[in-house]
Protein backbone atom coordinates (compact mmCIF):
# COMPACT_ATOMS: atom_id res chain seq x y z
CA UNK A 1 0.00 0.00 0.00
CA UNK A 2 2.78 2.40 0.98
CA UNK A 3 4.75 1.38 -2.10
CA UNK A 4 1.83 2.12 -4.42
CA UNK A 5 1.32 5.47 -2.75
CA UNK A 6 5.04 6.22 -3.04
CA UNK A 7 5.13 5.37 -6.75
CA UNK A 8 2.00 7.41 -7.47
CA UNK A 9 3.08 10.48 -5.50
CA UNK A 10 6.66 10.22 -6.71
CA UNK A 11 5.48 10.10 -10.32
CA UNK A 12 3.36 13.22 -9.70
CA UNK A 13 6.38 15.02 -8.19
CA UNK A 14 8.65 14.18 -11.13
CA UNK A 15 6.01 14.96 -13.75
CA UNK A 16 4.97 18.28 -12.23
CA UNK A 17 8.62 19.28 -11.72
CA UNK A 18 9.23 18.65 -15.43
CA UNK A 19 6.10 20.56 -16.38
CA UNK A 20 7.39 23.56 -14.39
CA UNK A 21 10.14 23.88 -16.98
CA UNK A 22 8.19 22.75 -20.03
CA UNK A 23 5.00 24.81 -19.53
CA UNK A 24 4.78 27.77 -21.90
CA UNK A 25 2.67 29.94 -19.66
CA UNK A 26 4.65 31.12 -16.59
CA UNK A 27 1.54 31.08 -14.39
CA UNK A 28 1.07 27.42 -15.30
CA UNK A 29 4.72 26.85 -14.34
CA UNK A 30 4.08 28.25 -10.88
CA UNK A 31 0.92 26.15 -10.53
CA UNK A 32 2.89 23.01 -11.45
CA UNK A 33 5.55 24.06 -8.94
CA UNK A 34 2.87 24.25 -6.27
CA UNK A 35 1.72 20.74 -7.18
CA UNK A 36 5.34 19.57 -6.91
CA UNK A 37 5.67 21.11 -3.43
CA UNK A 38 2.37 19.61 -2.34
CA UNK A 39 3.25 16.13 -3.57
CA UNK A 40 6.68 16.33 -1.92
CA UNK A 41 4.83 16.98 1.32
CA UNK A 42 2.91 13.79 0.60
CA UNK A 43 6.22 11.90 0.27
CA UNK A 44 7.32 13.27 3.64
CA UNK A 45 4.09 12.06 5.23
CA UNK A 46 4.80 8.61 3.77
CA UNK A 47 8.17 8.34 5.57
CA UNK A 48 6.59 9.56 8.82
CA UNK A 49 7.94 13.12 8.84
CA UNK A 50 4.49 14.68 9.15
CA UNK A 51 5.72 17.84 10.90
CA UNK A 52 8.11 18.70 8.07
CA UNK A 53 5.38 17.92 5.54
CA UNK A 54 2.97 20.37 7.15
CA UNK A 55 5.67 23.03 7.45
CA UNK A 56 6.49 22.58 3.76
CA UNK A 57 2.86 23.21 2.88
CA UNK A 58 2.40 26.14 5.27
CA UNK A 59 5.65 27.91 4.37
CA UNK A 60 6.29 27.07 0.73
CA UNK A 61 2.85 26.39 -0.69
CA UNK A 62 0.86 28.69 1.59
CA UNK A 63 3.17 31.70 1.58
CA UNK A 64 6.20 31.59 -0.74
CA UNK A 65 4.41 30.18 -3.79
CA UNK A 66 1.55 32.66 -3.30
CA UNK A 67 4.09 35.47 -3.65
CA UNK A 68 5.61 33.76 -6.72
CA UNK A 69 2.19 33.54 -8.28
CA UNK A 70 1.46 37.13 -7.29
CA UNK A 71 4.63 38.41 -8.98
CA UNK A 72 4.35 36.21 -12.08
CA UNK A 73 0.73 37.22 -12.65
CA UNK A 74 1.68 40.89 -12.45
CA UNK A 75 4.61 40.58 -14.86
CA UNK A 76 4.07 41.53 -18.46
CA UNK A 77 6.78 39.54 -20.22
CA UNK A 78 6.90 38.72 -23.90
CA UNK A 79 7.74 35.04 -23.78
CA UNK A 80 8.19 34.54 -27.49
CA UNK A 81 11.05 37.02 -27.33
CA UNK A 82 12.45 35.38 -24.21
CA UNK A 83 12.32 31.90 -25.76
CA UNK A 84 14.37 32.97 -28.79
CA UNK A 85 17.51 33.62 -26.77
CA UNK A 86 17.20 30.46 -24.70
CA UNK A 87 18.90 28.15 -27.24
CA UNK A 88 22.26 29.67 -26.39
CA UNK A 89 22.04 28.32 -22.83
CA UNK A 90 21.76 24.67 -23.92
CA UNK A 91 25.47 23.80 -23.42
CA UNK A 92 25.35 25.08 -19.81
CA UNK A 93 22.08 23.27 -19.14
CA UNK A 94 23.54 20.07 -20.55
CA UNK A 95 26.71 20.43 -18.45
CA UNK A 96 24.74 20.99 -15.22
CA UNK A 97 22.44 18.09 -16.08
CA UNK A 98 25.37 15.73 -16.68
CA UNK A 99 27.01 16.76 -13.40
CA UNK A 100 23.75 16.18 -11.48
CA UNK A 101 23.20 12.73 -13.01
CA UNK A 102 26.82 11.78 -12.36
CA UNK A 103 26.53 12.85 -8.71
CA UNK A 104 23.30 10.94 -8.25
CA UNK A 105 24.87 7.84 -9.80
CA UNK A 106 27.89 8.17 -7.50
CA UNK A 107 25.70 8.47 -4.41
CA UNK A 108 23.57 5.56 -5.57
CA UNK A 109 26.61 3.38 -6.17
CA UNK A 110 28.22 4.34 -2.86
CA UNK A 111 25.19 3.56 -0.72
CA UNK A 112 24.45 0.29 -2.51
CA UNK A 113 20.71 0.58 -2.72
CA UNK A 114 18.36 3.44 -1.92
CA UNK A 115 16.10 1.79 0.64
CA UNK A 116 14.54 3.58 3.56
CA UNK A 117 13.42 0.54 5.54
CA UNK A 118 15.59 1.46 8.50
CA UNK A 119 14.69 5.14 8.40
CA UNK A 120 13.45 6.47 11.74
CA UNK A 121 11.63 9.78 11.35
CA UNK A 122 11.53 10.45 15.09
CA UNK A 123 14.76 9.15 16.67
CA UNK A 124 14.68 9.06 20.45
CA UNK A 125 11.32 10.81 20.77
CA UNK A 126 7.67 9.98 20.60
CA UNK A 127 6.75 12.15 17.63
CA UNK A 128 8.50 13.75 14.70
CA UNK A 129 7.80 17.22 16.11
CA UNK A 130 9.47 16.46 19.46
CA UNK A 131 12.48 14.89 17.75
CA UNK A 132 13.04 18.00 15.61
CA UNK A 133 12.54 20.35 18.56
CA UNK A 134 14.90 18.36 20.78
CA UNK A 135 17.70 18.59 18.22
CA UNK A 136 17.01 22.11 17.00
CA UNK A 137 16.94 23.76 20.42
CA UNK A 138 19.92 21.90 21.91
CA UNK A 139 22.49 20.66 19.45
CA UNK A 140 21.90 23.18 16.69
CA UNK A 141 20.73 26.11 18.83
CA UNK A 142 23.46 28.45 17.60
CA UNK A 143 22.85 27.65 13.93
CA UNK A 144 19.11 27.96 14.43
CA UNK A 145 19.45 31.39 16.00
CA UNK A 146 21.94 32.45 13.33
CA UNK A 147 19.37 31.51 10.68
CA UNK A 148 16.89 33.69 12.56
CA UNK A 149 19.33 36.61 12.56
CA UNK A 150 19.93 36.20 8.81
CA UNK A 151 16.18 36.27 8.20
CA UNK A 152 15.88 39.38 10.38
CA UNK A 153 18.62 41.11 8.37
CA UNK A 154 16.88 40.15 5.13
CA UNK A 155 13.60 41.50 6.49
CA UNK A 156 15.15 44.80 7.56
CA UNK A 157 16.86 45.00 4.17
CA UNK A 158 13.56 44.53 2.35
CA UNK A 159 11.92 47.22 4.48
CA UNK A 160 14.81 49.66 3.89
CA UNK A 161 14.65 49.04 0.13
CA UNK A 162 10.96 49.74 -0.12
CA UNK A 163 10.60 52.51 2.48
CA UNK A 164 10.23 55.84 0.76
CA UNK A 165 8.91 59.02 2.26
CA UNK A 166 7.04 60.70 -0.54
CA UNK A 167 6.06 64.25 0.41
CA UNK A 168 2.80 64.59 -1.50
CA UNK A 169 1.01 61.58 -0.12
CA UNK A 170 -2.01 62.03 2.11
CA UNK A 171 -1.78 59.78 5.11
CA UNK A 172 -4.43 59.04 7.66
CA UNK A 173 -3.49 59.30 11.29
CA UNK A 174 -5.76 56.75 12.88
CA UNK A 175 -5.50 58.17 16.40
CA UNK A 176 -6.40 61.63 15.11
CA UNK A 177 -9.22 60.12 13.09
CA UNK A 178 -10.77 58.17 15.92
CA UNK A 179 -10.11 61.05 18.33
CA UNK A 180 -12.35 63.36 16.33
CA UNK A 181 -15.51 64.45 18.10
CA UNK A 182 -18.67 65.88 16.65
CA UNK A 183 -17.78 69.41 17.74
CA UNK A 184 -14.47 69.32 15.82
CA UNK A 185 -15.97 68.08 12.61
CA UNK A 186 -19.37 69.70 12.20
CA UNK A 187 -20.78 73.15 12.49
CA UNK A 188 -24.47 73.94 12.65
CA UNK A 189 -25.62 76.79 10.37
CA UNK A 190 -29.10 78.15 10.12
CA UNK A 191 -29.33 79.99 6.79
CA UNK A 192 -32.43 82.01 6.08
CA UNK A 193 -34.50 81.08 3.01
CA UNK A 194 -33.06 82.47 -0.21
CA UNK A 195 -29.62 83.09 1.28
CA UNK A 196 -26.51 80.96 0.94
CA UNK A 197 -23.98 80.34 3.67
Amino acid at each position, binding site marked *: MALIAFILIGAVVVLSAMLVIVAR*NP*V*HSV*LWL*ILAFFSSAGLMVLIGA*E*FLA*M*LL*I*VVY*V*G*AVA*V*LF*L*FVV*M*MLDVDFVELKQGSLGYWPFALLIGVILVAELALVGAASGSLTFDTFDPSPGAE*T*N*TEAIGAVMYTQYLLLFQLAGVILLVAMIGAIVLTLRHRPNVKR*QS*VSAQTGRRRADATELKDPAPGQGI
Partner: protein
Amino acid sequence: MSNAIESLGSLWGPLLVLGQIGLFTLVLLLSIAFLLLLDRKIWAGVMMRKGPNVVGPFGLLQSFADFGKFLLKEIVIPAGANKFVFIFAPILTCTLAFAAWAAIPVAPGIEGGTSWVISDLNVGVLYLFAISSLGVYGIIMGGWASNSKYPFLGALRSAAQMVSYEVSIGFVIITVILMVGSMNLSDIVNNQAGGLQNWHAFSFQNFPLIVVMFPMFVIFFISALAETNRPPFDLPEAESELVAGYQVEYGSTPYLLFMLGEYLNIVLMCAMMTILFLGGWHGPVAIGANAAGSMPPLLLSLAGLFWFMLKILFLFFLFAMVKAIVPRYRYDQLMRLGWKIFLPTSLAAVLVVAGYVTYFGVQS
Protein backbone atom coordinates in the same frame (compact mmCIF):
# COMPACT_ATOMS: atom_id res chain seq x y z
CA MET B 1 -11.90 5.00 16.59
CA SER B 2 -8.57 4.05 15.01
CA ASN B 3 -8.31 0.99 17.28
CA ALA B 4 -11.71 -0.12 16.13
CA ILE B 5 -10.59 0.20 12.52
CA GLU B 6 -7.52 -1.95 13.09
CA SER B 7 -9.51 -4.69 14.78
CA LEU B 8 -11.81 -4.96 11.81
CA GLY B 9 -9.01 -6.17 9.61
CA SER B 10 -7.20 -4.71 6.66
CA LEU B 11 -10.07 -5.13 4.19
CA TRP B 12 -12.67 -3.33 6.25
CA GLY B 13 -10.34 -0.49 7.24
CA PRO B 14 -10.41 1.43 3.95
CA LEU B 15 -14.15 0.75 3.55
CA LEU B 16 -14.84 2.12 7.02
CA VAL B 17 -12.81 5.25 6.28
CA LEU B 18 -14.72 5.67 3.02
CA GLY B 19 -17.97 5.31 4.94
CA GLN B 20 -16.84 7.92 7.47
CA ILE B 21 -15.89 10.30 4.67
CA GLY B 22 -19.28 9.76 3.04
CA LEU B 23 -21.08 10.40 6.32
CA PHE B 24 -19.07 13.56 7.01
CA THR B 25 -19.72 14.84 3.49
CA LEU B 26 -23.44 14.17 3.70
CA VAL B 27 -23.84 15.77 7.11
CA LEU B 28 -21.73 18.78 6.09
CA LEU B 29 -23.68 19.35 2.87
CA LEU B 30 -27.01 19.12 4.67
CA SER B 31 -25.86 21.45 7.45
CA ILE B 32 -24.49 23.94 4.92
CA ALA B 33 -27.89 24.03 3.21
CA PHE B 34 -29.60 25.06 6.44
CA LEU B 35 -26.75 27.27 7.70
CA LEU B 36 -26.94 29.24 4.46
CA LEU B 37 -30.63 29.78 5.10
CA LEU B 38 -29.90 30.72 8.72
CA ASP B 39 -27.31 33.24 7.53
CA ARG B 40 -29.83 34.84 5.18
CA LYS B 41 -32.60 34.77 7.80
CA ILE B 42 -30.40 36.47 10.42
CA TRP B 43 -29.28 39.04 7.91
CA ALA B 44 -32.87 39.67 6.95
CA GLY B 45 -33.95 39.83 10.59
CA VAL B 46 -31.40 42.56 11.38
CA MET B 47 -32.71 44.53 8.38
CA MET B 48 -36.33 43.91 9.49
CA ARG B 49 -37.06 41.90 6.36
CA LYS B 50 -38.56 38.43 6.26
CA GLY B 51 -35.82 36.75 4.25
CA PRO B 52 -36.46 33.66 2.14
CA ASN B 53 -39.96 32.43 3.06
CA VAL B 54 -41.54 31.02 -0.10
CA VAL B 55 -39.99 27.60 -0.73
CA GLY B 56 -41.23 25.18 1.92
CA PRO B 57 -42.35 26.10 5.45
CA PHE B 58 -40.42 29.21 6.64
CA GLY B 59 -38.38 28.93 3.44
CA LEU B 60 -36.64 25.84 4.80
CA LEU B 61 -36.19 24.37 1.34
CA GLN B 62 -34.80 27.58 -0.19
CA SER B 63 -31.20 26.27 -0.31
CA PHE B 64 -32.32 23.12 -2.13
CA ALA B 65 -34.19 25.19 -4.69
CA ASP B 66 -31.07 27.34 -5.17
CA PHE B 67 -29.00 24.18 -5.51
CA GLY B 68 -31.26 22.91 -8.29
CA LYS B 69 -31.17 26.26 -10.02
CA PHE B 70 -27.37 26.41 -10.00
CA LEU B 71 -27.06 22.87 -11.31
CA LEU B 72 -29.47 23.44 -14.20
CA LYS B 73 -27.98 26.71 -15.41
CA GLU B 74 -25.62 26.77 -18.36
CA ILE B 75 -21.89 27.02 -17.60
CA VAL B 76 -20.56 30.10 -19.35
CA ILE B 77 -16.80 30.24 -19.84
CA PRO B 78 -15.53 33.65 -21.02
CA ALA B 79 -13.85 33.61 -24.44
CA GLY B 80 -10.49 34.85 -23.15
CA ALA B 81 -10.48 32.66 -20.07
CA ASN B 82 -7.93 29.97 -19.34
CA LYS B 83 -10.40 27.10 -19.48
CA PHE B 84 -8.68 24.48 -17.34
CA VAL B 85 -7.69 26.83 -14.53
CA PHE B 86 -11.10 28.54 -14.71
CA ILE B 87 -12.93 25.26 -14.04
CA PHE B 88 -10.28 23.89 -11.68
CA ALA B 89 -10.30 26.87 -9.28
CA PRO B 90 -13.77 26.32 -7.76
CA ILE B 91 -13.19 22.55 -7.61
CA LEU B 92 -9.97 23.16 -5.68
CA THR B 93 -11.69 25.57 -3.26
CA CYS B 94 -14.43 23.06 -2.55
CA THR B 95 -12.12 20.04 -2.27
CA LEU B 96 -9.78 21.77 0.18
CA ALA B 97 -12.71 22.93 2.28
CA PHE B 98 -13.88 19.32 2.56
CA ALA B 99 -10.37 17.90 3.06
CA ALA B 100 -9.78 19.97 6.17
CA TRP B 101 -12.67 18.22 7.93
CA ALA B 102 -10.74 14.92 7.91
CA ALA B 103 -8.85 16.02 11.02
CA ILE B 104 -11.70 17.58 13.01
CA PRO B 105 -12.66 15.49 16.06
CA VAL B 106 -16.39 16.00 16.62
CA ALA B 107 -17.17 13.88 19.69
CA PRO B 108 -15.54 11.62 22.29
CA GLY B 109 -15.18 8.02 21.13
CA ILE B 110 -17.05 5.08 22.59
CA GLU B 111 -13.82 3.57 23.88
CA GLY B 112 -12.01 5.73 26.42
CA GLY B 113 -9.36 8.13 25.17
CA THR B 114 -10.48 8.06 21.55
CA SER B 115 -12.55 10.47 19.49
CA TRP B 116 -14.86 10.55 16.49
CA VAL B 117 -12.56 11.67 13.73
CA ILE B 118 -11.60 10.36 10.31
CA SER B 119 -7.86 10.74 10.92
CA ASP B 120 -6.49 11.56 14.39
CA LEU B 121 -3.31 13.30 13.21
CA ASN B 122 -0.44 14.10 15.55
CA VAL B 123 -0.05 17.42 13.78
CA GLY B 124 -3.80 18.05 13.44
CA VAL B 125 -3.58 21.80 14.11
CA LEU B 126 -0.82 22.23 11.56
CA TYR B 127 -2.83 20.20 9.04
CA LEU B 128 -5.83 22.49 9.44
CA PHE B 129 -3.60 25.55 9.21
CA ALA B 130 -1.89 24.19 6.10
CA ILE B 131 -5.13 23.31 4.34
CA SER B 132 -6.75 26.64 5.16
CA SER B 133 -3.65 28.45 3.90
CA LEU B 134 -4.13 26.69 0.56
CA GLY B 135 -7.62 28.16 0.26
CA VAL B 136 -6.17 31.33 -1.24
CA TYR B 137 -5.23 29.45 -4.44
CA GLY B 138 -8.80 28.84 -5.49
CA ILE B 139 -9.45 32.57 -5.37
CA ILE B 140 -6.21 33.63 -7.08
CA MET B 141 -6.60 31.01 -9.83
CA GLY B 142 -10.26 31.89 -10.36
CA GLY B 143 -9.47 35.59 -10.56
CA TRP B 144 -6.54 35.14 -12.90
CA ALA B 145 -8.17 32.60 -15.21
CA SER B 146 -11.22 34.82 -15.76
CA ASN B 147 -8.96 37.15 -17.76
CA SER B 148 -10.95 40.18 -16.69
CA LYS B 149 -10.09 43.23 -14.62
CA TYR B 150 -12.47 43.01 -11.67
CA PRO B 151 -11.77 39.35 -10.91
CA PHE B 152 -8.05 39.96 -11.17
CA LEU B 153 -8.20 42.88 -8.72
CA GLY B 154 -10.25 40.70 -6.39
CA ALA B 155 -7.69 37.91 -6.64
CA LEU B 156 -4.80 40.26 -5.84
CA ARG B 157 -6.64 41.69 -2.86
CA SER B 158 -7.44 38.28 -1.48
CA ALA B 159 -3.85 37.06 -1.92
CA ALA B 160 -2.51 39.92 0.20
CA GLN B 161 -5.36 39.73 2.71
CA MET B 162 -5.30 36.00 3.37
CA VAL B 163 -1.52 35.81 3.67
CA SER B 164 -1.53 38.74 6.13
CA TYR B 165 -4.15 37.33 8.45
CA GLU B 166 -2.68 33.83 8.37
CA VAL B 167 0.32 35.20 10.25
CA SER B 168 -1.69 36.30 13.27
CA ILE B 169 -3.83 33.13 13.14
CA GLY B 170 -0.59 31.14 13.27
CA PHE B 171 0.62 32.95 16.39
CA VAL B 172 -2.75 32.57 18.10
CA ILE B 173 -2.64 28.83 17.39
CA ILE B 174 0.87 28.71 18.89
CA THR B 175 -0.41 30.16 22.19
CA VAL B 176 -2.92 27.30 22.39
CA ILE B 177 -0.30 24.70 21.45
CA LEU B 178 1.96 26.08 24.21
CA MET B 179 -0.81 25.66 26.78
CA VAL B 180 -1.56 22.08 25.71
CA GLY B 181 1.89 20.86 24.76
CA SER B 182 0.51 18.88 21.82
CA MET B 183 -0.65 19.55 18.28
CA ASN B 184 -3.17 16.72 18.32
CA LEU B 185 -6.68 18.18 18.17
CA SER B 186 -8.14 15.52 20.49
CA ASP B 187 -5.45 16.32 23.08
CA ILE B 188 -6.28 20.02 22.76
CA VAL B 189 -9.97 19.30 23.38
CA ASN B 190 -9.29 16.95 26.31
CA ASN B 191 -7.04 19.58 27.89
CA GLN B 192 -10.19 21.68 28.30
CA ALA B 193 -12.28 19.02 30.06
CA GLY B 194 -14.07 19.81 33.32
CA GLY B 195 -16.37 22.67 32.48
CA LEU B 196 -16.44 26.25 31.28
CA GLN B 197 -13.61 27.44 33.53
CA ASN B 198 -11.10 25.18 31.77
CA TRP B 199 -11.84 26.31 28.23
CA HIS B 200 -8.82 28.01 26.71
CA ALA B 201 -10.79 31.18 26.04
CA PHE B 202 -11.27 31.59 29.82
CA SER B 203 -8.63 29.31 31.43
CA PHE B 204 -9.45 30.16 35.05
CA GLN B 205 -7.10 27.43 36.25
CA ASN B 206 -4.18 29.42 34.94
CA PHE B 207 -5.82 32.62 36.05
CA PRO B 208 -3.39 35.30 34.77
CA LEU B 209 -3.61 33.80 31.31
CA ILE B 210 -7.23 34.84 30.82
CA VAL B 211 -5.83 38.33 30.20
CA VAL B 212 -3.99 36.88 27.21
CA MET B 213 -6.18 34.03 26.04
CA PHE B 214 -9.51 35.80 25.77
CA PRO B 215 -8.08 38.57 23.55
CA MET B 216 -6.42 35.82 21.52
CA PHE B 217 -9.84 34.24 21.01
CA VAL B 218 -11.18 37.58 19.79
CA ILE B 219 -8.19 38.05 17.48
CA PHE B 220 -8.71 34.56 16.09
CA PHE B 221 -12.38 35.32 15.48
CA ILE B 222 -11.64 38.55 13.61
CA SER B 223 -8.80 36.94 11.64
CA ALA B 224 -11.15 34.09 10.76
CA LEU B 225 -13.54 36.67 9.31
CA ALA B 226 -10.69 38.02 7.17
CA GLU B 227 -9.47 34.55 6.24
CA THR B 228 -12.89 33.48 4.97
CA ASN B 229 -13.50 36.77 3.15
CA ARG B 230 -16.56 37.50 5.26
CA PRO B 231 -17.86 41.00 5.83
CA PRO B 232 -16.46 43.38 7.10
CA PHE B 233 -13.38 42.02 5.31
CA ASP B 234 -15.01 40.84 2.06
CA LEU B 235 -12.79 43.08 -0.06
CA PRO B 236 -11.98 40.37 -2.63
CA GLU B 237 -15.63 40.46 -3.68
CA ALA B 238 -16.58 43.96 -2.56
CA GLU B 239 -19.69 44.42 -4.69
CA SER B 240 -19.67 48.20 -4.51
CA GLU B 241 -16.16 48.45 -6.00
CA LEU B 242 -15.40 45.19 -7.79
CA VAL B 243 -18.93 43.99 -8.68
CA ALA B 244 -18.30 40.56 -7.15
CA GLY B 245 -14.51 40.38 -7.28
CA TYR B 246 -13.08 37.02 -8.26
CA GLN B 247 -16.57 35.56 -8.81
CA VAL B 248 -17.70 38.02 -11.51
CA GLU B 249 -17.32 35.63 -14.44
CA TYR B 250 -18.63 32.60 -12.57
CA GLY B 251 -22.12 31.21 -12.71
CA SER B 252 -23.91 27.89 -12.50
CA THR B 253 -22.11 24.92 -10.88
CA PRO B 254 -18.63 26.53 -10.64
CA TYR B 255 -20.16 29.40 -8.70
CA LEU B 256 -22.04 26.91 -6.53
CA LEU B 257 -18.72 25.22 -5.71
CA PHE B 258 -17.14 28.56 -4.74
CA MET B 259 -20.12 29.35 -2.55
CA LEU B 260 -20.06 25.89 -0.97
CA GLY B 261 -16.32 26.15 -0.31
CA GLU B 262 -16.77 29.56 1.27
CA TYR B 263 -19.46 28.37 3.68
CA LEU B 264 -17.57 25.15 4.44
CA ASN B 265 -14.56 27.26 5.34
CA ILE B 266 -16.68 29.44 7.62
CA VAL B 267 -18.02 26.39 9.45
CA LEU B 268 -14.48 24.99 9.55
CA MET B 269 -13.25 28.17 11.20
CA CYS B 270 -16.12 27.92 13.71
CA ALA B 271 -15.08 24.31 14.41
CA MET B 272 -11.45 25.37 14.85
CA MET B 273 -12.44 28.08 17.32
CA THR B 274 -14.61 25.57 19.17
CA ILE B 275 -11.74 23.11 19.42
CA LEU B 276 -8.98 25.59 20.22
CA PHE B 277 -10.82 27.89 22.60
CA LEU B 278 -14.31 26.73 23.55
CA GLY B 279 -13.63 23.22 24.81
CA GLY B 280 -14.64 21.24 21.72
CA TRP B 281 -17.17 18.56 22.68
CA HIS B 282 -17.00 19.27 26.42
CA GLY B 283 -20.11 20.80 27.97
CA PRO B 284 -19.96 23.99 30.03
CA VAL B 285 -20.62 22.07 33.25
CA ALA B 286 -18.41 19.16 34.29
CA ILE B 287 -20.09 15.79 34.77
CA GLY B 288 -18.71 13.90 37.77
CA ALA B 289 -16.61 10.82 37.04
CA ASN B 290 -19.19 8.59 38.74
CA ALA B 291 -22.09 9.99 36.75
CA ALA B 292 -20.10 9.71 33.52
CA GLY B 293 -19.14 6.12 34.33
CA SER B 294 -22.75 5.04 34.85
CA MET B 295 -23.90 6.46 31.53
CA PRO B 296 -23.69 4.41 28.32
CA PRO B 297 -20.66 5.56 26.28
CA LEU B 298 -22.78 6.12 23.19
CA LEU B 299 -24.89 8.65 25.09
CA LEU B 300 -21.72 10.50 26.17
CA SER B 301 -20.55 10.56 22.57
CA LEU B 302 -23.87 11.93 21.35
CA ALA B 303 -23.87 14.53 24.13
CA GLY B 304 -20.38 15.55 23.00
CA LEU B 305 -21.58 15.82 19.41
CA PHE B 306 -24.51 17.96 20.61
CA TRP B 307 -22.25 20.41 22.46
CA PHE B 308 -19.82 20.55 19.54
CA MET B 309 -22.59 21.41 17.07
CA LEU B 310 -24.20 23.89 19.47
CA LYS B 311 -20.93 25.78 19.84
CA ILE B 312 -20.39 25.83 16.07
CA LEU B 313 -23.92 27.13 15.67
CA PHE B 314 -23.29 29.88 18.22
CA LEU B 315 -20.10 30.98 16.47
CA PHE B 316 -21.86 30.86 13.10
CA PHE B 317 -24.56 33.11 14.57
CA LEU B 318 -21.79 35.57 15.53
CA PHE B 319 -20.40 35.39 11.97
CA ALA B 320 -23.86 36.14 10.58
CA MET B 321 -24.43 39.03 13.01
CA VAL B 322 -21.07 40.58 12.14
CA LYS B 323 -22.03 40.40 8.46
CA ALA B 324 -25.30 42.15 9.22
CA ILE B 325 -24.11 44.96 11.48
CA VAL B 326 -20.51 45.90 10.61
CA PRO B 327 -19.70 48.10 7.60
CA ARG B 328 -16.93 47.05 5.21
CA TYR B 329 -13.34 48.03 5.99
CA ARG B 330 -11.21 50.09 3.67
CA TYR B 331 -8.28 48.14 2.26
CA ASP B 332 -5.55 50.15 4.03
CA GLN B 333 -7.45 49.81 7.31
CA LEU B 334 -7.57 46.06 6.79
CA MET B 335 -3.81 45.86 6.26
CA ARG B 336 -3.15 48.13 9.23
CA LEU B 337 -5.31 46.00 11.50
CA GLY B 338 -3.57 42.81 10.40
CA TRP B 339 0.05 43.90 10.42
CA LYS B 340 0.21 46.73 12.95
CA ILE B 341 -2.25 45.58 15.60
CA PHE B 342 -2.90 41.83 15.44
CA LEU B 343 0.64 40.72 14.57
CA PRO B 344 2.42 42.55 17.45
CA THR B 345 -0.35 41.66 19.91
CA SER B 346 -0.32 37.96 19.08
CA LEU B 347 3.49 37.90 19.04
CA ALA B 348 3.54 39.44 22.52
CA ALA B 349 0.93 36.90 23.62
CA VAL B 350 3.16 34.04 22.45
CA LEU B 351 5.99 35.46 24.58
CA VAL B 352 3.75 35.88 27.63
CA VAL B 353 2.22 32.41 27.39
CA ALA B 354 5.60 30.76 26.73
CA GLY B 355 7.07 32.58 29.74
CA TYR B 356 4.13 31.61 31.94
CA VAL B 357 4.26 27.98 30.89
CA THR B 358 8.02 27.85 31.48
CA TYR B 359 8.00 29.46 34.94
CA PHE B 360 4.70 28.35 36.45
CA GLY B 361 3.70 25.31 34.42
CA VAL B 362 0.15 24.78 33.20
CA GLN B 363 -2.50 23.44 35.55
CA SER B 364 -5.21 21.60 33.72
